Every structure is written in structure tokens, then in C-alpha cells.
């Protein structure tokens, strides 16, 4: 190889770019260009159907911070709903699939079947899942309350001070419980698969060594599995936060943003503002604020998880 200081050119200078070109074209067209145009739009009162798209400077942004504006309450309620959902769903979507992956990584009869079963809901579209849960969870005619009633649990719940029928989709905190539970059921398969791949990457000699040292199952998990999954964990946490922050279909279909506007997430607000009220400039400003907020969260998280450096089992 090129051990001396002499540079040996093995390819034309444009070769790497040529290899990247197919991706770059798509990336520039569908990510960078729209993002830049969105920035431009957010500085205008932008309705793509109207000739007149006046430049309004930062008005679309300042309106979001002005409590007397029409969008203020709507936008921040949306951000709050998104935050509530993210905080409630991310820990579950990180922890439950991890436990599942560890179980599914063991050798036992029917393992492949179970792997498929847990992944299966993920292939359903949000419309299917949403409609299914809307009817299952209907407070008066849904099967969930029907079953609770059938087995006589309603009396027990009543004794605990729970109003009957349980307003799964029409009261709080039940609506959030429903949306989070449904999302966990629906999407846990994805994170499980990622974890499984990560688990299979951990060399089995490490477990052998740990066992020789007399490590218990928990100690193996704590000192071999978790450190071995650090990079995977960072990835899972990041994409789960982003996915949860972009929650949209579930709330739209199951609760339609209700009760009141408590589950109207930031994305539903933006959709209404941009594509129903056609205030694209204002909607673009909103999505930039959401993007900035998510960017900050991601950076904090990467910094927090990078702290302890390389995985222990390699050191």
C-alpha cells in the first residue's frame, strides 16, 4: 500500500462524487431544496394558489410567540401534545422491545414464529390500525369496555374510582393511555428487530467469559449486553424520539385530536394550517420551530450517550 509519502492516485478526482450522485440527486431534490424553499416560504404569507405572496419577514415566527395571535394557542397546544406523547411513549418503545429482543434471541422452539408475530403489526398501515382501535376502544360500543363489563371488572374499577364507561378515546388521561398503548403495540416490532440485529453482533465469547467469571444472568445483561448495544441503543432512542415527535395518524384517526384539542399534535396543527387553511408560510414556520426543537433534543442525547466513550467490551 501507499506507505511512503508519495501520493498515488487510484481514481479520477470525480469518482467518489459519481458514486454518490444518484443519492445526492434525490437528497438535493427531495430534502435540501424543499427545506430551503420552506425557509423562504416561512418568510412570506404564502398561499401557492394566490399570485400575491407578500414578504412578511419574521412575522410568521413572531406570531408563534405572540399570545394574542390566532396561531399561538393552537401551535403551543400542539407542541405540548407532541411533548406529552413523546415523553410517555419513548421509554416504553425503548425498554419493551429491548426485553423482547433479549427473549427472542434465546433458542427455543417456535422462535421464528414469535419473531414474526411481534413484528407483524408494524406492517399494517396507520389507517388500518387507527380504525381498528377506534372501534375497539369506543367507550359505549367498543369491545374493550364490553369485555371489562362481561367479566365484571367494571365493579372493581368503580371501586377504584374509575368512571364507567372508561372513556378510552373521549376523556383524559385515557386518550393518551390508548394512543400510547396502541403505538407501542403497533411499532415495537421495528425496534425489536434492530435490537435483535445488535444482539447478534455481540461476540458469544464475551458471554462465555462472563459465565466463567460467575456472572449471573442479570450481570451478563448489565455488563455485556447493554454495553454491547450502546451504539444500537443510541440509534433506537434517536429514531424513536423523532418518530414519536412526528405522531400524526393515530391521534387523527382514533381521537381526532380530542377530547377538546388535547391530542391534537403539532403535526396535525401544521397540516390544518398549511393544507386546510392554506397558510403555508405559517405552517412552514411552525415546522421549522419543531425541527429546531428536535435538533436540540437529538444533540443533547448524542452528547449524553457519547460520554462514556467506546463500548467497554472492546477496551
Amino acid at each position, binding site marked *: 500500500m501507499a506507505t511512503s509519502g508519495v501520493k498515488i492516485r487510484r481514481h479520477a478526482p470525480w469518482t467518489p462524487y459519481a458514486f454518490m450522485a444518484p443519492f445526492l440527486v434525490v437528497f438535493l431534490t*427531495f*430534502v435540501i*431544496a*424543499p*427545506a430551503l*424553499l*420552506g425557509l423562504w*416560504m416561512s418568510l412570506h*404569507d404564502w*398561499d*401557492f*394558489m394566490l*399570485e400575491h405572496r407578500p414578504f412578511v419577514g419574521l412575522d410568521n415566527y413572531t406570531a408563534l410567540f405572540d399570545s394574542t395571535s*390566532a396561531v399561538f394557542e*393552537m401551535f403551543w397546544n400542539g407542541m405540548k401534545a407532541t411533548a406529552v406523547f413523546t415523553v410517555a411513549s419513548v421509554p416504553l418503545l425503548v425498554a419493551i422491545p429491548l426485553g423482547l429482543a433479549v427473549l427472542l434471541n434465546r433458542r427455543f422452539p417456535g422462535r421464528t414464529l414469535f419473531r414474526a408475530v411481534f413484528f407483524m403489526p408494524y406492517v399494517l*398501515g*396507520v*389507517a388500518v390500525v387507527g380504525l381498528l382501535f377506534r372501534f375497539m*376502544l*369506543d*367507550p*359505549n*360500543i367498543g369491545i374493550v369496555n364490553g369485555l371489562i363489563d362481561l367479566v365484571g371488572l367494571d365493579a372493581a374499577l368503580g371501586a377504584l374510582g374509575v*368512571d364507567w*364507561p372508561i*372513556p378510552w*378515546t*373521549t*376523556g383524559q388521561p385515557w386518550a393518551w393511555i390508548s394512543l400510547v398503548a396502541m*403505538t407501542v403495540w403497533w*411499532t415495537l416490532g*421495528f425496534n425489536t428487530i434492530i435490537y435483535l440485529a445488535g444482539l447478534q453482533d455481540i461476540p458469544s465469547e464475551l458471554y462465555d467469559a462472563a459465565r466463567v467469571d460467575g456472572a449471573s444472568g442479570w450481570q451478563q445483561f448489565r455488563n455485556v449486553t447493554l454495553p454491547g448495544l450502546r451504539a444500537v441503543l443510541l440509534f433506537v432512542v434517536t*429514531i424513536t424520539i*423523532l*418518530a414519536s*415527535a*412526528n405522531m*400524526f*395518524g393515530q391521534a387523527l384517526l382514533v381521537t*381526532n385530536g*380530542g*377530547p*377538546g*384539542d388535547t391530542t391534537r399534535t403539532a*403535526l396535525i396543527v*401544521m*397540516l390544518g394550517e*398549511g*393544507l*386546510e*387553511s*392554506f397558510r*403555508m408560510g405559517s*405552517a*412552514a414556520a411552525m*415546522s*421549522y420551530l*419543531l*425541527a429546531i426543537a*428536535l435538533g436540540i433534543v437529538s444533540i443533547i442525547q448524542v452528547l449524553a450517550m457519547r460520554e462514556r466513550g467506546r463500548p467497554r467490551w472492546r477496551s
Partner: protein
Amino acid sequence: MNTREISPGPSLSRRRFLTATGVLGAGAVLSACGGGSSSPGAEPAEGGGGATGYDGPDVDLAFWNGFTGGDGPFMQQLVDQFNTEHPNIAVKMTVMEWADYYAKIPTAVQSGNGPDVGIMHVDSLSTNAARNVIVPLDDVAEALELREDDFATAVWSAGEYDGQRFGIPLDVHPLGYFYNKAVLESAGLDPESPPMDRESYEAALEQLKSAGIQGHWMSPHNFTGSMTLQSLIWQFGGDLFNEDGTEVTWHEDAGVQALSWMVDAVNTGYSPTDVGQDADAIALQNGQAAFNWNGIWHINTLKEVPDLQWGVAPLPNIGGTQAAWAGSHNFVLTRQRRPDENKQEAARVFINWVSQQSIAWAEGGQVPARNSVRESADFEALPEQSALAQQVDYLRFPPSVPGIGDVFADFNQALNEAVLQTLEPATALSEAAERAAKKLEENRERYGG
């Protein structure tokens, strides 16, 4: 020939939103494709406005609408029949959810991929006319010899914007009063004459209650709660907006009375709490409720339920003034980036033809827009539809003001909060009115209204 297709729509998966560009990206891409736009209202009037037929080369017409319910197959039948009778015109109908449709159509029109013919509700016409999504079709109205006195005033005038006609009314679809005869009978009420005023309505609900039936499930959702509340506000002598749609008035006395009546029904046990979306309609089918105020499109849904004993009547008069909510479907022509004279002519022929098939369309669960057709023997042969058509003199339509749809989210939220008992009716309505007033003010500037 089967030319119907269901639009796949945007498939929503959580991961697709991962890029965090979502709405922003979509809007940007679409407007990027859009580029410049041709000047508004510059469509040439074609030939005889569709009355003289079309003898040009073969054309394909794209026809979009939101007839996803029981009405869809009836429209498809009309389209098939039209295609058979007009060998040189092939109309292809695409059906999608109304909400998707209204979001999609402006972007499609702007990028030159829009339909040739569409359907719009009467309260969306002015918004879409103001935004140059649709073009005037005065010539079609003339060719059809449409006259103002043949239509409900609200339907007729809502089709006009800036002195030009943008919609050819196809039907009116009022809210109706559906009742389950078996349930009424089981509670000792006359199944053939449901209560028609407030006193007897409440007495019936009381009687149902003592028979263990929650008679009228109050929906806290758009469907059907919002239309019920609007009807009640008009019945109590109020309105949602002032005359020209510039100010919100739904939080005034009539609005509070109307919403309180709904909430009281929940409080007194005439309705269960926490009614879910569509649960009110399903309860009627299941025999769990006696009454359901639902749209006329519900007729065909109920007809498909085996062994269900049901009837339909004009809304009972709860508030003191006869009134009922109604909408109206209108034919529209969308603006074309690359106008094709043949297509424009063929589209007019299509509108002209369907507009004359009102009876076939009425069978789909609609009331014909024209008085003359409504008074015909053919229409009277449709008992359910003509029962609801009795309301025609006092039907009320959402106002036709550009951007008025923006504030219904607030109205619906007030309904939701009050019926779910999280806010007092008066508080919910006035908070919503405050939010809505700001939007109306912005719209006034925006549409120069």
C-alpha cells in the same frame, strides 16, 4: 366498463414522517412544481355550454369527488351510462375522502395534474373561487337554463363569487331525523309518529329512559354532533356568523341554549357520556338508541341493515323555529394549466348531462337541487328522500365566505369540550369564538373581503 378507482391516498406510516419535513416538504415540493400560474378566470367559454354535445376527437376526462359512502356507486352508474352514450368521451371517476380531496385538489390543479371536473360543497365554492382553483361556468348554467327561482336561495347565491357562477348545483343533502321503530315500540311509544316538538321529544326521551334506553346519543364529534348543534342554533333563532360571515355569533344566547340542550340530554341520562365517533349511528342500528340526527346519505346505509325497522322524518323543532342543516354538492370545473378546448367542451357536456339525471342521483340518497325535479312524481316515489325534502323551505347552509372552513375546527372543539363535560357550554363557545374571530380577521385581509 369499470373505470372506478379508489385513490390510494398518502400512505401514512410513522417512519415516513421520520424525515421531519412532513407538511413542510410536501408543500414546498408541490409549489416548486407549480411555478407560475395562469391568470385567474381566463377560461374561454366553450360552444353552447355543454348543451350542443361534443363531436370532437376522443377525450379522457378525469372526474374527482369524495363520494366514498353509499352515494359512490350511484355516481359511478351515472358515469358508466354517460360513457356508453358518449363514445368519444371517457370519464374516469376517482373517489377519495372529502378531507383529502380538498387538500389535494389545489395542489393538483397548480401542478397541472388536476381533474377536469370535480364536485365541491356549497360552502367551499367561494374559497376555491378566490384561490383560483375553479373557473367560472356561467355558460353551462345558461345552457342548462338554470334559473334562480328553481333553487333554494342559499344554494343559488353560494355558487356565485365576484359576479360569476362557479358551481352547478347537483343536490342538497339535509340533516334528517332517523328513528328506530322497534325501540320506540318497546318503550310504549308510537313507532309511526315520532315526537316532533320539544315537549313531546323530551317526554319521549323520559319514557325511553324509564324503559332503560338512552334515546338520543349526543355526538361530541363533527359527524353528527356539529350538524346537530348548527341546526339547533338556527332553531333557537341564532346563527353561527353574522350576515356577511365576518363575525362569529355562535356564542350568543341561541348558541348557548342549543349546546346546553345537548349537554343536558347527557346530564339527565337521555344520552350516554363519551359517545365515540359513529357510535351514535351504530347505536341506532343496534337498537341501543331510538333517535339519531344524521345526514340524508345515511338512508342507503340503513337500508342495507337487515331486519332494521326504521323511519326518517324532518328534524323535530326543539328551539322554536323550524331549521335544519344542509349541504349541497356542486359541479365545478378546475383551472387547467394547459387548457385543452376539446376537454373543456366535453367536460361541459358531462356536467350538463349528469345535471339532468337528478332522479337517478336522488336514489343515491340526495334531494335534487331543482325545485321542479323535487316536485316531480318520480321524486315523490322515493319516500325517505321526499320526507327529508319537506324541510327545503327552512334548510340552512354553511355560509359561503372564502376561508370560512378555517373556523369550524374551533366550533367543533367547543362542541366536543361541552358534550364531553370538560367545559360549560357558554365558556366553550365563547373561547372558540375568540379564537375564530382572529382567524376571520386574518381571512378578511387575505381574501380582501
